[in-house]
């Protein structure tokens, strides 16, 4: 064939080049995704690896003398439980006679051991009257040794436990159990006692306040601005300001909270109420922007249909437009809330950085929040706080995932196809 067009369907040079460029681009995209996934997996895996230790704690069995000489059954609370614990340790290891040795011996059990003994007796007064074997928490150093974080082969003076202490531990009956205290205790200076509950409750209460304030205010502002406000210089000005607010560093909102909520309004310092209010200042712009975008995405034909039926603008908005924009509202809210959950800086400004042992019972009591707790633990020198830090991060991540799951379920529920 001599027809010059005979090959018109075959690939030509510039076509092959085009396909190659396409291939190249796809590969770059795949590599980018693989890289980010690797980082993510690495991060999560390392956090879990470090944090899993916090779920285990070490207990020591002690044979304590609970005779009536030591404890008056009529006045159990008046007894000196610390003394009983110390006595038990001394009877076990009579060789510790010098003051320094005794101190080292006592350091094997947690400073909470006396209280644990008391609680067990109050729970079961039948224990009284004879020698009993009870389990008490070991100190964090013992816990670290059991978990292999203290190296026995190192010379004595470069580890936190002496050879004698290690030999005592080996002689004692020791077990590793699930650390329920981590989920039921507040913060503590002793790593083996420190728990996440007060921070968790503080975060939950703050977020509740934040949601209760920012969701209605944000959605209403968005609906008003998008559906009712006259477009003009004022609405432009407001829009620009809201967009700028979304980019303001969060610590500035903390300063605002400090000067307005605490100093002017006189609300209680360190409380989840103020924390939630400050966080809602921060989430509001996010929610408003997302909600306006989702309102704008509702087809105008729906608005016209409703208005053409004789619905008033408010009816048209709330019966038809807002329900269609609901998934968008929820997405914006959850993005804002997730930001708020991880926010530390503004909370530092209003005093939620305090060392809080008690679990806050109301929104007016002092509390701390999960990210602040993580920050505090990461700052502590004890080796045992390292795993607590990671475990707290795991709790924070699980909290976040749960929040997102709820949002997805709600969104699915409200999603209407059109």
């Amino acid at each position, binding site marked *: 064939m001599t027809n010059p067009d005979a090959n018109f369907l075959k690939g030509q040079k510039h076509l092959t080049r085009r396909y190659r460029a396409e291939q190249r681009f796809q590969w770059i995209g795949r590599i980018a995704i693989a890289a980010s996934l690797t980082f993510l997996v690495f991060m999560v895996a390392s956090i879990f690896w470090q944090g899993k230790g916090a779920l285990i704690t070490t207990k020591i069995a002690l044979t304590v003398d609970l005779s009536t000489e030591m404890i008056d059954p009529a006045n159990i609370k008046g007894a000196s439980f610390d003394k009983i614990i110390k006595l038990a340790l001394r009877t076990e290891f009579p060789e510790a006679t010098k003051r320094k040795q005794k101190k080292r011996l006592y350091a094997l059990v947690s400073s909470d051991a006396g209280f644990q003994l008391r609680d067990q007796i109050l729970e079961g007064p039948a224990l009284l009257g004879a020698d009993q074997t009870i389990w008490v928490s070991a100190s964090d150093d013992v816990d670290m040794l059991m978990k292999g974080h203290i190296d026995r082969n190192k010379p004595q003076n470069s580890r936190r436990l002496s050879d004698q202490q290690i030999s005592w531990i080996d002689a004692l009956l020791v077990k590793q159990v699930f650390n329920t205290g981590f989920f039921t205790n507040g913060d503590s200076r002793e790593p083996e006692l420190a728990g996440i509950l007060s921070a968790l409750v503080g975060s939950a209460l703050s977020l509740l306040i934040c949601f209760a304030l920012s969701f209605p205010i944000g959605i209403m502002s968005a609906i008003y601005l998008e559906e009712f406000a006259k477009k003009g210089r004022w609405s432009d000005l407001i829009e620009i300001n809201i967009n700028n607010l979304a980019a303001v560093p969060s610590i500035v909102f903390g300063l605002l909270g400090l000067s307005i909520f605490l100093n002017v309004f006189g609300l209680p310092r360190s409380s989840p109420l103020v924390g939630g209010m400050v966080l809602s200042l921060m989430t509001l712009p996010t929610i408003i922007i997302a909600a306006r975008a989702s309102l704008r995405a509702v087809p105008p034909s729906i608005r*016209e*249909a409703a*208005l*053409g039926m*004789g*619905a008033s603008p408010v009816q048209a908005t709330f019966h038809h437009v807002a329900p269609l924009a609901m998934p968008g509202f929820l997405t914006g809210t959850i993005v804002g809330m997730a930001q708020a959950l991880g926010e530390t800086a503004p909370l530092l400004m209003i005093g939620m950085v305090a060392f809080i042992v008690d679990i806050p019972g109301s929104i007016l009591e002092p509390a701390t929040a999960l990210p602040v707790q993580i920050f505090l633990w990461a700052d502590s020198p004890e080796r045992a706080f390292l795993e607590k830090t990671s475990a707290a991060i795991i709790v924070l991540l699980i909290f976040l995932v749960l929040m997102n799951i709820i949002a997805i379920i709600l969104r699915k529920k409200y999603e209407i196809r059109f």
Partner: protein
Amino acid sequence: MQKTPLITAKDVDVFYGTKQALDKITLDIPEHKVTSLIGPSGCGKTTFLRCINRMNDLVDICRVEGQIEIAGQDIYAPEVDVVALRAHVGMVFQKPNPFPKSIFDNVAYGPKIHGLVSTKSDMEEVVEWSLRKAGLWEEVKDRLNETGTGLSGGQQQRLCIARAIAVKPKVILMDEPCSALDPIATAIIEELIDELRKKFTIIIVTHSMQQAARVSQRTAFFHMGNLVESGATKTIFTSPQDERTQNYITGRIG
């Protein structure tokens, strides 16, 4: 002697900002007839249609001057409630736009917000009546709880008509109701329009001159914001007075 028209428009000017979209439109629309508004794109026929139920109020920069009376009442008078007006002047749009709710709720929405029915059985009656009038009842009676957006295009448009007539308006405005539909669906809607004019007064904007000729008794021809000619459809199509009308219906402009 002719009956007094239901709608009379007198010297209606419409401005979008500084641009004049309609210029001194004076038109009478008789009751229980189909009046079609024809003309090339951008001639102002849809603008005029939207003046009749004041949908133009929604456009910030739109300004309407002149007088439109429905049954002797000036609809642009300050005491007129737009919501009440729209309950009497229903509208069917170019693209079918049922609410993303059930078929039942679509039709029931109007009577509900205007408080026309009080009991559930009354509502069911109104919904059935409207759907029957719109010729949709037989097709959807077993699936009233399914969403209205799941219907075919033609069915959706009939659902929109059912929704509009459920509040028993005096006038139904139709803005190119068949432009998004296939010929069969169009034919069904056209039949329906003819049926509906017994109860309602219908004004229809259409791009199809065949459609105007088929469904309407009166026709008004718009051109560049002016009402060029209006009269009985037959007269307009057979012996137009104005040269522009003639050019348009014979396909020389458009």
